[in-house]
């Protein structure tokens, strides 16, 4: 029996990508702190978890795709690093997008809880391996 692509568990050594709109100024390669916590703030679409993408299914450029002509950065994370801090990540493949995954602990509804604020700081300041881009969305 074949497992549908994108449904297999995310291994600890998998890299994950989080798209960050450049227009919000949440990343600045020059001024510190470089990446601000709101790069990991769930938006109104993140009802079941914060969206990330699995590097095994998408290139950086593909993960950065958003509105045509707009620029995006991509924050790179490792699944095992998140889990070591108690932040789980699960596959949530979408139709035509097997690389979609979610951090179910961070949702639009709980985004203002103390621990959610702390997770955002952890993700931006300790767990983010690097930030790539900006990439212009074709």
């Amino acid at each position, binding site marked *: 029996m074949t497992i549908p692509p994108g449904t297999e568990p995310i291994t600890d050594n998998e890299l994950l990508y989080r798209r960050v709109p450049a227009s919000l*100024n*949440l990343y600045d390669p020059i001024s510190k*702190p470089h990446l*601000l916590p709101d790069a990991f703030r769930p*938006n*109104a679409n993140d009802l079941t978890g914060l969206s990330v993408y699995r590097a095994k299914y998408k290139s950086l450029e593909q993960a950065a795709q*958003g*509105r045509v002509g*707009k620029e995006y950065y991509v924050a790179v994370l490792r699944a095992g690093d998140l889990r070591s801090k108690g932040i789980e990540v699960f596959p949530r493949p979408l139709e035509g997008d097997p690389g979609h995954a979610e951090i179910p602990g961070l949702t639009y509804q709980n985004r203002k809880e103390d621990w959610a604020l702390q997770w955002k700081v952890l993700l931006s300041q300790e767990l983010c391996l690097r930030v790539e881009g900006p990439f212009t969305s074709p």
Partner: protein
Amino acid sequence: MSGATWADLRGPVSINGASGQGATVATGQAPQISKDWQAVVSGRLAEWERNPRQLEDDGIVAPSRETVHRAADIARELCALGLAAPQRVAATGDGGIVFARQEGAFFSNIEVMGDGSAELTVYRDSRLVSRQRLF
């Protein structure tokens, strides 16, 4: 005398009357602080006021003109308190604007929200140590 850090700030702050605040700064630093805050108001905030559409994106709520004005007012109030200007200014994507500073092990974040309120959160080594409403 060294300047007060954002972590020293205690809310709520009263508009046009922040004398109760413990935060102070060496007078010799005041001109530079004022200049730095002015750069925030006339730079990024003014740019967003002129062209709010640049922030539009899927799932993103850009700060309204009123929120941008409110952030500018709060910037002037914090400047009057003698606090150092933020190192970073960003839009939250949720209708708000954040001012951020890293001071040693402390990371401080002032969020001006869409309803005009403002909240200071302070983290030490990524742990939340303080959260309070400023305005």
